[in-house]
Each structure stands twice: as C-alpha cells, then as structure tokens.
C-alpha cells in the first residue's frame, strides 16, 4: 500500500520547525520571580522539619542508651550488693568451722576444703604447730570452684594438680603449681584456665 501523501513530503527539518512554532503559554509574570524564593522557602522548611525529626530520633537513641546503661549499672550494683553479704556469710561460716575443727584437733588440722556443699578436712598424723595464721585460697578452673583454708607449706589437690600454698615474706600468698607460680601481690596474672584469690584468713572478713 502506498504511503499517504503527508508521510513522504514533510521533511524532518520542516516537522521540527512546525513543532517549535508551537509556543508555550507564559505563566503569570510573577511566577518567575516567586518560584525561586518559594522553592528555597519550602526547602528551608523541609530542612528544619528534617532536623526536628532527627533530634527526637537522636534524643530517643540517647535516652534509650542512657536507660540501658542505667539498667546494666543497677544490675551490677544489685549483684554486687546481693553477692557480698552472701560471700561474707559463707566466709564467716568457713572461718567458724575451721576454728571449731581446730579446737577438736589442736595442731593437727592442716586445712579444710569446701567445694559446694562438700567439706573435706585435712589432718596431719602428728601434731605440728603452724608458724603463721591460716590462709584462705579460692580456686576456680574448668569445673566447680573450691575454697581452701590451710596453712603455709601445705599442698592441696585441684583438678588433677597438686598446688602448694605458701605465705610470702611481705604477707602475700603464693600458690605454686606444676607450671606456674601465682602471687596475691600480682593477683591479675592468672595461669591459663585458672582463677585464684588468696589472702590471710583474718583479712578476708
């Protein structure tokens, strides 16, 4: 089928010219002056709004974080407050028990080992007067913790190892294992997989 007349005779440049002669109506004269300031005004409003929205968000995060910190701090305080009396009471009970057993076996008591509810009393075959006061040693490893009240020079078994407890010249307590020497003078230097606390029993309460 032959193309219609106008398809073949309107060249591109004449069509373009015709299209460009289609004028665009002018907006009201004030439009060109007002548009830039209107845009800037609206942008300013949106920026302020965004800033206002950001502040409450930041405040919400801040308050949330502060509240979380406060809760954590309160939990720590509560744990510290609630564990301290319990620990003190347990120590007092241990000390009382040690004194009572010592009265029954004068100069023969070498120590007591408390592991949970289990108490083991260590007695010497022959009476032997201790050169210094009793020492309190707490040992925590892979298994349950163990509290020992003993004298300098005594040996205690803990998780398959034999540990020697010694009183140092400056009042510190030394715990000597097969691969380590721990001192209460540098209490943070724990051997691997073992946490030790030690001091004179009198000082523990």
């Amino acid at each position, binding site marked *: 089928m032959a193309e*219609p*007349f*106008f*398809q073949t005779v*309107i060249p*591109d440049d*004449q*069509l*373009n010219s*015709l*299209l*460009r*002669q*289609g*004028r*665009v*109506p*002018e*907006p009201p004269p004030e*439009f*060109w002056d007002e*548009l*830039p*300031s*209107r*845009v*800037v005004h*609206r*942008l*300013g409003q*949106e*920026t302020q709004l965004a800033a206002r929205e950001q502040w409450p968000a930041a405040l919400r995060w801040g308050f949330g974080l502060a509240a979380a910190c406060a809760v954590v701090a309160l939990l720590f305080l509560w744990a510290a407050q609630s564990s301290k009396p319990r620990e003190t009471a347990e120590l007092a009970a241990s000390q009382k028990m040690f004194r009572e057993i010592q009265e029954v076996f004068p100069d023969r008591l070498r120590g007591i080992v408390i592991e949970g509810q289990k108490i083991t009393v260590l007695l010497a075959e022959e009476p032997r007067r201790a050169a210094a006061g009793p020492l309190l040693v707490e040992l925590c490893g892979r298994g349950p913790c163990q509290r020992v009240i003993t004298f300098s020079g005594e040996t205690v078994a803990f998780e398959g190892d034999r540990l020697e407890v010694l009183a140092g010249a400056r009042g510190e307590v030394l715990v000597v294992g097969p691969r380590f020497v721990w001192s209460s003078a540098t209490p943070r230097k724990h051997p691997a997989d073992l946490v030790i606390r030690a001091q004179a029993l009198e000082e523990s309460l």
Partner: protein
Amino acid sequence: MADAGDEAEWICGSRAGDPAAFEPLVRRYQRMIFVLAYRMTGAPESAEDLTQEVFMRAFQELPHYREEAKFATWLHQIAINHCLNFKKRAARQAGLIAGWTEEQTRRVSGHGTGDVDLAASVQEALLALDERQRAAVILTVYDGLSHAEAARALRCSEATVSWRVFMARRKLRRLLAPQWRNRFSKP
C-alpha cells in the same frame, strides 16, 4: 551572566544542604523545566506545580549528581521522569484540556490567532503521542539533546530513543499535515 564556575559553586553549596545556594540554579533553569513540563502535560497549572516539584526533587537528589553529566542534562533526567510519574496529571488534564484553547488565548500575547491555533494544534498532537514517545520528542527536538543523552535521561537504550522518535514523527506528520500545508505548501 553567571558562568560555569558560579554554577559549580551553587551546586557545591546546595549539595552541602544550603537552600539559598540553590536559588540561582532555580532562576537559571526554571524556564527550561517549565517548558518541558508544559510540553509533557499540556496544562499550564500542572507545569507550574511540576516545575516547583522538580526543583525540590533535584535538591534532594543533588548528593547523587555525578559531574560527568552536565547539570542541565541531569536536571532534564529528573524532570522528565518526574513528569512521567506525575500520576495526577491525567485526572487534571481531563478538566484542563477542555479549557486549553481559552487558556492559550488569554496567555499567549503578542501573537496572531494563527499562532494560537498552531500552538494548540502542536500541543494537541504532542499530547496524542504515547507519553514515552512524547518525552523522546521533547528532549531531542525541543531541548536539543542527542539520542544518547536522551537515552540517559529516559534510562533506556539509544536505539529505544531512536525508535520512539521515529514512531512519534510518523504520528506527528499525520496529525500536523494540515498545519504543514498551511505553512509550507502555500504558493
């Protein structure tokens, strides 16, 4: 007359979030965007609203502007896509196109009735096109973008732009044949 250096400064200031730095950019390009919006919608009021919205959008999008493209081309891209997405347009057009000729008569000043008729015919022909074909014609014929630049603005291939322009020209030739005969074929 502001130069490219000024424009770069305005862009930089606007990118930093300073709306005042954006004002000269609006002043420089507002007519270009208004004309484009009008060609796309055929409704002066819609074109006015769209022009403002395009600049609002452009300010928000400025952090994504890569300077390998000219600012004007980038602005074209935002404007044409904003016009294509202007959902209310159809509803508003329904009422506005009816009064289009009267609007033209009121607004186009300094031109004879023939100009008004031609303007109305051209705009009607443009509005009769598929909107993507219309966008391709507006960018290439009116705004002088190359097919490659128009393709970037329309986010399609250059071949697609060429095809849309070709199809649009076919339809425009048919629709504007009487006006062409009046203008170019008179003895």
